[in-house]
């Protein structure tokens, strides 16, 4: 850095300039941050570190401290005292979990039949999504990775909208430009998903900074997987969020795998959670298969973020029951037994047991709900499939706010070509204007 700065001063500098620079530098340092640099042999006075000297030669690692515990409510041996949740909300949470699960099954099958090009299920992670989404408000802005359809579902994204996006038909608000499951919704404050992993993290921090300056009582919730946490952008985001004091809730879905890579090959420390305190971020590890634990942890994080204007990290422990995507057969790298173990006691089953135990749910409701959800999804699915794709000229719009000349020229050139060779293009599938 010093070298860079020196070069910056350039060779033009003469004596006087150097003097001025030095003076300015000194005065600006004095006015900005007070740094105590007095050298004392007893108390360390290193900048940015507050600690003591020690005469013990000792390295520190995982074995020197206990791993972070997992906060849970359902199936906890002790009864947890928390503010009561409205019954209607509990039922709605369960209903959304079921809906997400059924939508996943239908869209997964439709990809297998070649009706949509790609799909990613949320199986096993419904509680993380619905539980956290229920704990925040529509004013809060969401940045997601791609396995968070439940968050959108909770916020009111309709089944029809999900289907339109997966089909890329003319009703898709992103105009069919992105692969399926890359949802987004301005009205629901859900920033459009993109494929590059972790890029959304530092962006979420920037948005949180903006929210804080605007004095809105809102924060940002940013989701990512434990694999994505290995990207440099995760480091950037944690550090920026902490140093610039941004109200963002980082929600890590630690589901054990990044495609085929088990988390054992992703990190050697105590998961993602342990990194939080290292950045100076308030952190909690939660049972991500326990919707109530997810709800209350996120609720508390939300309050903390807004009140303190600082970030929170939630590591939600879970298991990816489905394949990574429709382009993946996960039995190539993990055993059917392992999947089966997690599948016997899913977040949905756990929550249903709880609801039944408090008399809020029964078999009959289960059957009726499943039937009606399935019906509405199949209906939306059929409609979305029948709809035309957007006009092919939308390929050229929205690259910039206004179409520049060179792109207009390319659009005209393609139009001429398509007119001449129309029989070689699938024009009948696309709207004409």
């Amino acid at each position, binding site marked *: 850095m010093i070298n860079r700065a020196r*070069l910056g*001063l350039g060779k033009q500098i003469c004596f006087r300039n150097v003097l001025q620079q030095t003076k300015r530098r000194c005065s600006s340092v004095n006015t900005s941050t007070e740094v105590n640099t007095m050298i004392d042999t007893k108390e360390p006075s290193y900048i940015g570190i507050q600690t003591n000297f020690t005469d013990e030669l000792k390295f520190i690692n995982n074995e020197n401290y206990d791993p972070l515990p997992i906060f849970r409510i359902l199936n906890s041996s002790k009864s947890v005292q928390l503010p009561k949740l409205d019954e209607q909300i509990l039922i709605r949470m369960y209903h959304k979990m079921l809906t997400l699960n059924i939508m996943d099954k239908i869209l997964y099958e439709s990809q297998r039949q070649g009706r949509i090009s790609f799909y990613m299920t949320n199986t096993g992670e419904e509680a993380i999504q619905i539980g956290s989404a229920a704990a925040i408000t529509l004013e809060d802005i969401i940045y997601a990775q791609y396995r968070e359809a439940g968050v959108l579902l909770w916020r009111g994204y309709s089944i029809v909208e999900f289907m339109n996006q997966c089909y890329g038909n003319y009703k898709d608000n992103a105009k069919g430009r992105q692969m399926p499951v*890359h949802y987004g919704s301005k009205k629901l404050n859900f920033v459009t998903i993109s494929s590059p992993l972790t*890029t959304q993290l*530092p962006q979420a921090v920037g948005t949180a900074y903006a929210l804080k300056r605007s004095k809105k009582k809102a924060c940002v919730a940013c989701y990512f997987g434990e694999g994505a946490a290995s990207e440099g952008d995760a480091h*950037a*985001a944690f550090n920026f969020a902490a140093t610039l004091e941004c109200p963002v809730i980082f929600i890590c879905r630690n589901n054990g795998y990044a495609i085929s890579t088990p988390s054992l090959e992703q990190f050697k420390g105590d998961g993602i959670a342990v990194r939080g305190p290292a950045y100076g971020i308030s952190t909690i590890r939660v049972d991500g298969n326990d919707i109530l634990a997810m709800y209350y942890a996120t609720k508390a994080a939300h309050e903390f973020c807004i009140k303190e204007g600082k970030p929170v990290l939630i590591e939600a422990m879970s298991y990816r029951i489905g394949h990574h995507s429709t382009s993946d057969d996960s039995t190539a790298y993990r055993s059917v037994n392992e999947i089966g173990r997690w599948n016997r006691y899913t977040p949905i089953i756990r929550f249903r047991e709880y609801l039944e135990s408090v008399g809020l749910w029964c078999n009959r409701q289960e059957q009726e709900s499943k039937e009606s959800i399935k019906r509405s999804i199949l209906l939306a699915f059929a409609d979305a499939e029948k709809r035309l794709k957007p006009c092919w000229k939308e390929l050229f719009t929205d690259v910039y706010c206004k179409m520049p000349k060179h792109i207009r020229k390319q659009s005209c050139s393609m139009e001429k070509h398509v007119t001449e060779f129309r029989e070689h293009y699938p024009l009948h599938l696309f709207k004409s204007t």
Partner: protein
Amino acid sequence: MIFSKLCARLLNARASLGFNTVDRFVQRENVRCIHFTYYKDKNTNTSGETENMNMYQAINQGLRSALTNDPDAVIFGEDVAFGGVFRCTVDLQKEFGKDRVFNTPLCEQGIAGFGIGLATAGVTAIAEIQFADYIFPAFDQLVNEAAKVRYRSGGEFDCGKLTIRTPCGAVGHGGLYHSQSPEAYFAHTPGLKIVVPRGARQAKGLLLSCIEEPDPCIMFEPKILYRTAIDDVPTARYTIEIGKAEVVREGDAVTLVGWGTQVHVLLEVADLVQEKLGVSCEVIDLVSILPWDAELVCKSAKKTGRIVIAHEAPLTSGFGAEIASTIQEECFLHLEAPIQRVTGWDSPFPHVFEPFYLPDKWRCFAAVRDILNY
């Protein structure tokens, strides 16, 4: 005297920068002079008050005006709080507060991502990457994210309020990582806008355009001009249209196209050619790399029939290639000679060999002479 002590220490630390207590008035042979003569901007069509200032001062004034005009606008990057290593943000934190002008951790991908997030929320985000050489860690955020937000969301989201400023180009002694001109990497990215000012006046006008433009913009600022480029800069707010090139000097024998510092090299070449060969060159400052003004360049190419394109960046896949192929396509029947590209060589940017690396006025002059004799 404490100051003289300090100075002596600085001098010892960096004799190559040209301070030397013994022969401070002697021009030392191994210290390179700048490779161009600055041509003051002659544009006088703006009325109103002007002030004589260098490029960093003009940028500073532009930033000040942006922060004054838009109470939400923020400036951030490495070391911007104390004024920046090139002084472009000097005094701004004092005037506008720590929440609007602030240092970030040392992490370029973070700076770019953070800026995109601010802009997505509708905030004017003016980010600084300390040297263009260090923009590559942010390449993913800029190319995959900033450039594509509007397109991929069908226009629902955008980060048009993002502006990235970054010092670029040769500086005499910058070596591999304080000299690069990476505009061509970004010119291949639909969704971005890229500009390069050639002086103080352009820098302020282009900066304010970038900030106002509803698309993410990168302004590459030739760092050698920060102090050497001194113009009469309008004190009022003004903008310079992005996507428009400028004929800096009219001529009829050869068209010379460049941007940034290279425009001044080309102006000197035009003088040399006039003096030694007796013909006039038309000099075009491309100003805007993406989108670029093909119309104006082709119009000039049709008039002169001979084109020399010059840039500091390496030849292969440099932006000159894009210009040359477009001219060839649009002006084929008007060309009297093959289009010439005078550029940096296809090597990393070297330290002591800089005088042999740069497309200086003699290399450009030779190209013009050859193209006239073709």
